[in-house]
């Protein structure tokens, strides 16, 4: 969950630019969830997500003086984390497609925004991670930023460095696959 802060994000960023470590800690607390969930779903690996999240914030601290308020800070942070995720996937040179066998027992999860039990929650997590792993990385990023982070296509284009048209195509392809995936798994007719 996002944590509360007394200062606005703009004030915190300004203080962090001036070298205030406490302000930067506040920024981390406010954005940790966003960055972690992004890297988690991109890589499908919780430990890798932790490393990439930490790495993203260290980079953000090192480069914060170069942030001149152009665009929003949220997008700037997400761009750093997205690049970390993409670089990681490029480095390991594989599409991190998760093993389908792992999900054989979860072909028909109880889809709901609020899973009641820990097991349902885990099943839901697995379903999402498996689906995400079947997407090419750029589609995965577009789906993550659009659907989960609720960003506009323009913002996603700025973060991913792709044209808006490309981002829309990537997202559309991901949604088509989600629909096919749901039909295949019997979630939807």
């Amino acid at each position, binding site marked *: *969950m996002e944590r509360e802060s007394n200062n606005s994000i703009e004030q915190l960023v300004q203080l962090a630019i001036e070298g205030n*470590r406490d302000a*930067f*800690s506040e920024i*981390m*607390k406010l954005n*940790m*969830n*966003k960055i*972690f*969930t992004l890297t*988690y*779903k991109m890589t499908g690996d919780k430990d890798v997500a*932790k490393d990439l*999240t*930490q790495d993203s*914030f*260290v980079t953000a*601290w*090192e480069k914060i003086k170069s942030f001149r308020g152009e665009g929003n800070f949220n997008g700037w942070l997400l761009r750093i984390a997205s690049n970390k995720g993409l670089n990681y996937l490029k480095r390991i040179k594989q599409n991190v497609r998760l093993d389908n066998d792992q999900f054989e027992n979860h072909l028909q999860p109880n*889809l*709901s*925004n609020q*899973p009641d039990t820990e097991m349902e*929650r885990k099943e*839901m*997590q697995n*379903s*999402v991670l498996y*689906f995400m792993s079947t997407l090419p990385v750029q589609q995965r990023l577009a789906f993550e930023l*659009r*659907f*989960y*982070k*609720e960003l506009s*296509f323009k913002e996603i284009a700025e973060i991913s460095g792709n044209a808006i048209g490309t981002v*829309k195509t990537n*997202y*559309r392809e991901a*949604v*088509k696959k*989600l*629909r096919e995936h*749901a039909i295949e798994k019997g*979630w*939807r007719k």
Partner: protein
Amino acid sequence: MKCNEVKNELMLITDDKELTSSLREHLLRCADCKKYYEEMQNLLEDFGSDDLFSPTDSETDAMIKNINNEITKKKPTIIPLHRYLSIAAALILVLGVTYIARKTGEFDKYKQPIYANSDSINRAENNSNLLNDDYEMYGNYFEQLNLENYETDEEFLYYLSDEDFEYLEDNFDVKELLL
């Protein structure tokens, strides 16, 4: 708008508020597209939320701690002010001494005067004569070779005696001659 185009647009929508008036109008009169849109929205709505992947508070705290440690490790070493002052003082000293020495002519003491003597004058004259001799000798040599008798450089080299070739090789850059 055709239904296919509408469905393509609907796929990009994650919230009803994003529906344009033309899409709304189409959904009002097309049951198939309306059904498609509702199904899509339900599917997306059901497909979990970010909360499923949130780190626990202890995981968040551990990450923040690690990040802070990493930042502290990477903190650049700050050179204390007194170090800067001592470097500045040393520079001022060196530049000051150099300036004063130039002003007072101290450096002139170490300049080596060059005196012309009979030996150096003779050596220069000899060198000059040698150069004139060489120039004359090479000129005569080329005249003897009658270069105009040969149509190409290759022809010239073909008829050149070993002795002449050796002489040319020792005294000229053959590549330059051929150019």
